Each structure stands twice: as C-alpha cells, then as structure tokens.
C-alpha cells in the first residue's frame, strides 16, 4: 500500500460522498419516482386543469383569472407543489431509515463523515430529485400549453427554491421523529392536506375570507406560488411583497438546515 493512501485525510466536501451513496439507493426506486413524477402532473392537469379550467373558461372567459388562462394561472403552483412533495419524500424516508429502520447513519458516522455532512448529503440528494421532478413536470405542463407565458421558465427555479425551503424544514422535523406513525399522521393530515387547499393553488388566496387567508400566509407553497405568478406572467404584487416572499422561503431554508444539522449531530452522538 502506498504511503499516500495510508494518510487517510478527512475528505473535503464529505456531503458529496453521502450524495453519491444516496443516489445509488434512490436509483433503486427509479421506476416509482418516475411514475410519481409523471403521473402526478398528468392527473392534476386532466382533472383540475382541464376539468375545472373548462368550467372557468366557459363562465368567465379564456383569460378570466388574473388576466391569463386557468392553466397558466395554476402552472407555477403545480410546479411548486411537485417540488415540495418530491423534496419531502426524499428527506423524510432516508432520515427515518438512517436513524431508525436500517440505522445506516450510525454506520456512516463511523467514518470521517459527521452529522452535518450526512444531513447535507441527504438534503442534496433531495434537491437532485426535486430538480429532476420539476423539469419533468414542466415538460408535461408545456405539452398541455400551461407554459405559454413569455417567462414561464422562471417558475422552474422558483419551484426548486420552494422545494429546498420546505425540504430543509422537513429534514429538521424528521430528524426529531421517534414515533413515525404519529409523525406521518400529523404531516399528511394536518400539514400537507391543508397547505394545498389554502395556499391559493387553484384560486387566488384573496377570494377566501380573511380569517382563512392566514393559512396561506404561513404556507411556503403560497409564497412560492405568488413569486411564480409574478415572475411568469406579471401577476401584480408590490416589490415589498416580492421581498417578503423571498425572505420567508430563505428563512425556512436556513433555519431548517441549521436545526437539521444540529439534530443529526446530536442524535448520532447518543
């Protein structure tokens, strides 16, 4: 063995090696992930986009909502939704698997990797999946004519940004979980469900009574959707609100990652 190999320095950018391993695991589920990435948008577009869209067009005309067609109106929201779902799956399951089911994080932590590099690797993997899902989704949206506005491509980075923000928060959340049954109930029924219903996804948030609009204000999906509509077809919002949306998502991202990195480290040291 050469002396150089035996030196064994701590690898720089350790998270990239965790990313590499996570990608190997993720590719084992390529079919499932692809099916979700493609079927989801098709089902949404056919049922809501075309179904509800036709109803709206027939009643208030082709550019009835926000001055654009219904499909163009919902496209940024659908993209952000898909990003959020992809990111969420790809942080929650590996985190539970790593700490609880197969305990693989404890094995990784016996190498020069640390809680932070493992958390970062899981997060980066989720971002790879999110990016690919959003790209696939936008391709399908394009085929359905939902990406017709001149700047519609801007909805792609905004959706990925939303996925990153929500993914970071869920990474922090999942790293605290001991009882996954309760966790899935809370996330599924009380977080994700209401978020999609009250984030102005399928209709403008201001059509809701003011008391219910509150749910939108605390929802990353609403902030991302507003940004997406602003960027893609010039939905009217003030510069202040643009800044508020960006800061909201950025804060989620940064806080989520800080808490997740700390909790990963703490839990592995137990």
């Amino acid at each position, binding site marked *: *063995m050469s002396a150089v*190999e*035996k030196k*064994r*320095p*701590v*690898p*720089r950018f*350790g998270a990239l*090696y*965790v990313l*590499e*391993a996570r990608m*190997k*695991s993720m590719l*084992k589920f390529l079919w499932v992930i692809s099916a979700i990435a493609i079927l989801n948008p098709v089902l949404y577009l056919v049922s809501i986009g075309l179904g509800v869209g036709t109803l709206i067009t027939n009643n208030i005309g082709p550019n009835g909502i926000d001055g654009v067609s219904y499909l163009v109106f919902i496209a940024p929201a659908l993209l952000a939704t898909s990003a959020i779902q992809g990111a969420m799956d790809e942080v929650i399951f590996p985190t539970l698997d790593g700490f609880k089911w*197969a*305990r*693989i*994080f*404890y*094995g*990784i*932590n*016996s*190498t*020069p*990797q*640390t809680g932070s590099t493992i958390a970062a690797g899981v997060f980066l993997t989720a971002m790879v999946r999110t990016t690919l899902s959003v790209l696939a989704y936008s391709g399908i949206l394009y085929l359905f004519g939902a990406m017709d506005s001149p700047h519609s491509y801007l909805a792609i980075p905004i959706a990925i940004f939303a996925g990153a923000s929500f993914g970071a928060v869920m990474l922090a959340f999942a790293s605290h979980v001991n009882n996954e049954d309760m966790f899935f109930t809370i996330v599924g029924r009380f977080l994700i469900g209401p978020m999609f219903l009250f984030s102005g996804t399928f209709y403008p948030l201001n059509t809701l009574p003011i008391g219910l609009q509150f749910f939108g204000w605390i929802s990353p999906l609403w902030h991302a959707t507003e940004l997406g509509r602003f960027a893609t077809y010039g939905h009217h919002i003030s510069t202040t609100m643009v800044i508020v949306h960006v800061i909201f998502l950025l804060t989620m991202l940064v806080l989520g990652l800080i808490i997740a990195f700390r909790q990963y480290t703490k839990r*592995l*040291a*137990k």
Partner: protein
Amino acid sequence: MSENLIEVRGLTKKYGDFLAVDGIDFIVQKSESFGLLGPNGAGKSTTMRIIAATSQRTSGEVSVLGKDPEIQGPQIRAHLGVVPQQDNLDTQLTVTENLYIYGRYFGLSKKFINSKISDLLEFAQLEEKRDTKVEALSGGMKRRLTIARSLVSEPDILILDEPTTGLDPQARHILWDRLFRLKEDGITLLLTTHYMDEAEQLCDRLIVMDKGRIMAEGNPAALIKKYSTKEVLEVRFGSNRNAVMAPAMRELCERIEVLPDRILLYTENAETVLENIVAAGHHPNTSLVRRTSLEDVFLRLTGRSLIE
C-alpha cells in the same frame, strides 16, 4: 517497540443520573488484541463508542492514535474500522455496493476501492453473493460483510462491539476464524464480548468490566490463574437440595460457588474431589469436570454469571 494506540484515563460517562462508565483506565498497544469482557450493561459499548469518536465522554482523558476523539473525531475515524453491535448495512444495496459506498465515505478513490473489493469478498466468503441485495443475506453473512466493510479503508485499529452475538455456533466459528486471521496479520483489535470463550480465543489481554468499573486486567490465562483454580467440578443435586449440600461440599475443596441450578467446586484436581464426594456418601444427580474459564473469573470477581 511498543506504541500506545489507545490511552484511557479516569474515563466516566453519565446518562442523566446513571453512571455507565465509572472511572476506568487502560492502554492498548499496537498489534495487540484487547478485549472488554463483561455482562450486558457493564459499560463496554459506551466505552467503545467514546473511543470510536461517536459519543462524548463526561470526564477523563482519552487519546486514540495520539488524538482526542472529542476534538478530532473525523480525523480519528478516518483510521478506524468499526463493527457495531447492530448491523447498519444499507439493505437496499448489494454486497459490493455496500463495500464501495463505505469506502467512498472515507474519500477513497474508486480505483482503490475496486482493487480491494475482491479480496474483501473472499475474506468474508461472500464471492457468490456479490450482487445480492443485503436484505436477502443471513445474519452470519451480514456480520461478515460488516467486518469486511470495516476493512475497506485499511484501518489502524479495528473496533468490534459484540461481533458474534446472535449468531449460531457455526457462524460464530467462521467469524472467529476470520478475526483470528486479522490478528495474525498484526491489526490492532479492540473488542467487547460477553462470551468468555470468545475472549479467550481472540484476546491477548483484556479487562473484566462490571457496572462501569474494571474488576481485573490481564491476559486470559493469567487472570484464570490469579482468580481461580485449575479445574472446576460442577455438581447438581436438584434445585432444592443444592443449598443444603453446600456446607458438605465446602469441606472437600478450596472454594465453592452455589448457583441456583448447580454447585461449582474449585480445585486443582476435580476427579479426586468427585471421588471424595462419592466416598463421603453423597450422590449428585449429575457431575461435570472441566477447566476453569473466564466465566469463573467473572463469577469470583462479581458473584454473578456473565450471561443472566
């Protein structure tokens, strides 16, 4: 020339009010095979995790390869191979993929890892399973893969926490053979076990731990010599009569231990003692003559058996 790879002084670890490790000291030298023997809950695994730089100590000094695991954890872990008590392989990946990704966590080049994989598969006797998903392997195969995985980075110290717990006798013997080969190759081994036969086979030197403290230290033969006689006679009179027979047995040998199911008589010549028992008109239901083991040392030191 001896070189201390691990030095532990006054190490303690508390979990809340519970003192898991209570001020222990020991040194492990290069190429030594060092064991921590003790029952479950003795503080062995906690000690191992602190040395492996994955758990923080409460007080005391620890030096591994000249570094403090609390400060230079990743730098120390880069030179260790760790076999945990509970397997934590990636069950979705194949045998080869597990070896490969583990090497990558150390930042090793793909070329280097690939050059090692066939040797590791041979060592673990898993050549035919190289493309099998880990979830389909038997318990013994998973353990062997975990050991092979810990060797991918050519570690300076191999740390094994209860390496054969939960395996059937045949799988244990295969594993011992593998570990013995590593020992012969001069790798420094640090292992915990609650099996005295494992400790006797694999350890050059060991500490006997109980309730977070070190009860004794030395090589297995010396410990047996120091704390016990050469032979043991085990006699059973039936569970309700053992206690009644104890005083009579005590007359016939150097020392006895009365267990719920049997009496152990410590002596230099067990056959003679057995003859004397029969000559005195006592008739045990069964009797067994054997050499003393670390189990007897442990019993002597703590008044309890290792596996309860």
